């Protein structure tokens, strides 16, 4: 049953890919869907690109295990879109073409800026993608456990091949529609699941919240009763003291990375190139916020529903809370549907990541760094992107298989932290600060990128001493006391990124960049001369 639903989704999306392959004539069609996507469609696609398995499965599970503190992720993921709406979306659409680096390179020296921006884009996308694929491996093999040949490795390879096919043949058109279909499926599934949870409580919020507030379950063989609405079960001082964490400061650091990182995630940014103009980009952010916000509010029902109806100690693991809840409430058939939705969720996100990474490689690195921005025909650029998509996919499959034991949350945290520390400072400075220059952009990107990577390597996510009883899959990579106390580096690396970009810009004045600020500013704020939509 489950496998039939999986196949139905795969066949439907391959159909979309074949259909959209016909539209891929020229680079604007391949990289930006001909800039012909409507506002509400792009809103759905942004939501589909963003609500990853980490959201659907991860947050539900986090709330089921840690109550209120898990809900903090839900809040951060939505508020983050205000940064996208207020600061980034419109200037990006107005002044750029295909990638984040277009915006940065506009008035700066193209080669060093694009090389650094491409490095950071590829890093963010690869880490994010490897996280999704490891998750996919575990998830698919657990969901389809009656088929023993579907091991995590087989699932990773399968997901990887599908995403490569979507991107190489479907381009941005195909990817967009896969994301739209996924967003609709995910929202439908979430509404039905929330409704079924409330049915168990006779549709009474009073009964539901009463049950959350006095939840009795087993912990370490002892029966305990806890109020799951109370904060502090994950980020509280008491909860983290055992691990030597800094408690609430970790929450602030995570919050910073979420709220400032989203506006620097390349796969989110490229979505705004698919609409005809900046006004539509703005409308699509608002659509995305309505969908994403509704979804994250509903995680209340998924997460607390799983906690109250299944009891935390009876859920197999954090990621299985939502699927197991669906099995409990709706039986085999509904479980199969929810599992297929989770699968669709992963596929749509990895396809979005693959296309943003390969576009950045072809457009930023190949055309502008290797070929010095000299004439590269549209066909060549698309061809390079397709080859890059193949390699990005292949490398991600290999990394995901190799790194299977790594903590997935750490990879996603890294992606957000790099996006916030490396990408956002240079985006903001290049749009709003006349004096900003090439040196500032390169130092900002590199310092943001490397400081977040180094701090994560030194953090308790990677470093820690495990006793012999800890299973191989859960052991820390480096068996030493962590040097940096926070699991998320944001609170240090984001200010460092801003500071490096600022100080770098002060080193030397760059008259060319300042001279071009007038033109850039007019373009960014009025949309004059912006890339136009193409008809098919």
């Amino acid at each position, binding site marked *: 049953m489950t496998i039939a639903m999986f196949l139905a989704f795969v066949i439907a999306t391959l159909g979309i890919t074949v259909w959209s392959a016909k539209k891929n004539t020229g680079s604007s069609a391949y990289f930006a869907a001909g800039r012909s996507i409507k506002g509400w469609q792009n809103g759905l696609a942004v939501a589909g690109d963003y609500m990853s398995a980490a959201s659907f499965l991860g947050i539900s599970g986090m709330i089921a295990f840690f109550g*209120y*503190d898990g*809900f*903090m992720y*839900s*809040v*951060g993921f*939505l*508020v983050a*879109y*205000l*940064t996208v*709406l*207020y*600061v980034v979306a419109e200037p990006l659409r107005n002044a750029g073409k295909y990638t984040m680096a277009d915006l940065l390179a506009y008035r700066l020296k*193209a080669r060093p800026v694009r090389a650094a921006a491409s490095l950071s884009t590829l890093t963010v996308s690869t880490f994010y993608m490897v996280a999704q694929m490891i998750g996919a491996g575990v998830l698919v093999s657990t969901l389809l456990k009656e088929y023993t040949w579907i091991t995590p490795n087989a699932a990773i390879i399968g997901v990887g091949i599908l995403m490569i096919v979507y991107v190489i043949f479907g381009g941005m058109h195909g990817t967009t529609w896969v994301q739209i279909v996924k967003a609709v499926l995910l929202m439908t599934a979430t509404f039905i699941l929330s409704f079924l949870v409330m049915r168990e409580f006779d549709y009474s919020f*009073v009964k539901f*919240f*009463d049950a*959350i*507030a006095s939840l009795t379950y087993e912990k370490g063989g002892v029966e305990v009763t806890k*109020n799951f*609405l*109370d*904060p*502090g079960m994950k*980020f*509280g001082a008491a909860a983290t003291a055992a691990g030597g964490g800094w*408690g*609430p*400061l970790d*929450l*602030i650091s995570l*919050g910073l990375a979420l*709220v400032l990182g989203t506006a620097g995630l390349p796969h989110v940014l490229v979505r705004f190139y698919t609409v005809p103009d900046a*006004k539509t980009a*703005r*409308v699509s*952010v*608002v659509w995305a*916020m*309505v969908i994403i*916000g509704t979804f*994250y*509010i509903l995680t209340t029902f998924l997460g607390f529903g799983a906690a109250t109806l299944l009891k935390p100690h009876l859920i197999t693991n954090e990621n299985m809370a939502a699927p197991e809840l669906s099995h409990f409430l709706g039986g085999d058939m509904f479980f199969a549907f929810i599992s297929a939705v989770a699968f669709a969720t992963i596929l749509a996100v990895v396809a979005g990541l693959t296309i943003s990474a390969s576009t950045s490689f072809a457009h930023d690195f190949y055309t*502008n760094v290797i070929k010095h*921005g*000299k*004439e590269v025909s549209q066909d060549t650029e698309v061809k390079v992107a397709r080859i890059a998509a193949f390699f990005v996919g292949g490398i991600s499959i290999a990394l995901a298989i190799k790194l299977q034991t790594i903590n997935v949350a750490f990879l996603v945290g890294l992606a957000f932290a790099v996006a916030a520390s490396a990408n956002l400072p240079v985006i903001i400075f290049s749009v709003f600060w006349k004096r900003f220059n090439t040196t500032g952009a390169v130092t900002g990107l590199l310092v943001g990128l490397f400081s977040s990577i180094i701090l994560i390597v030194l953090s308790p996510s990677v470093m820690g001493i495990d006793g012999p009883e800890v299973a191989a899959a859960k052991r820390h990579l480096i068996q030493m006391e962590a040097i940096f106390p926070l699991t998320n580096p944001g609170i240090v690396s984001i200010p460092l990124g801003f500071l490096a970009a600022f100080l770098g810009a002060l080193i030397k004045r760059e008259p060319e960049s300042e001279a071009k600020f*007038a*033109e850039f*500013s*007019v*373009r960014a*704020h*009025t*949309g*004059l001369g912006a890339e136009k939509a193409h008809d098919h």
Partner: protein
Amino acid sequence: MSDKENKSAEDKEMWERIAARPEFDSLLAAKRRFVVPCCLFFLIYYFALLYFVGWHLDLMKKPVFGKINVAYLFALSQFLMAWGMAWLYMRKAATYDKAVAEILKSETR
């Protein structure tokens, strides 16, 4: 970028002419007056939640409606805040669009 290198002097003059116009200046000033305080507001409102959840647990655990506590209501209010700020921006941005249209209209004349 080759098309950028070939940009004619005429184009350059147009960009600078628009940038120098008082209407363009007042558009940027209007944006700044609205966007900067709004961003400060939502950042402060968001980090206030994290601050209170982190360091003022007793207050956050107080029940308000039945078992629903301050913490949950504060978190829920973040969603309404985000949607409200988005709506506010949409409304305000319509006036920017108008100002941009005015500037471009007189430019192409």
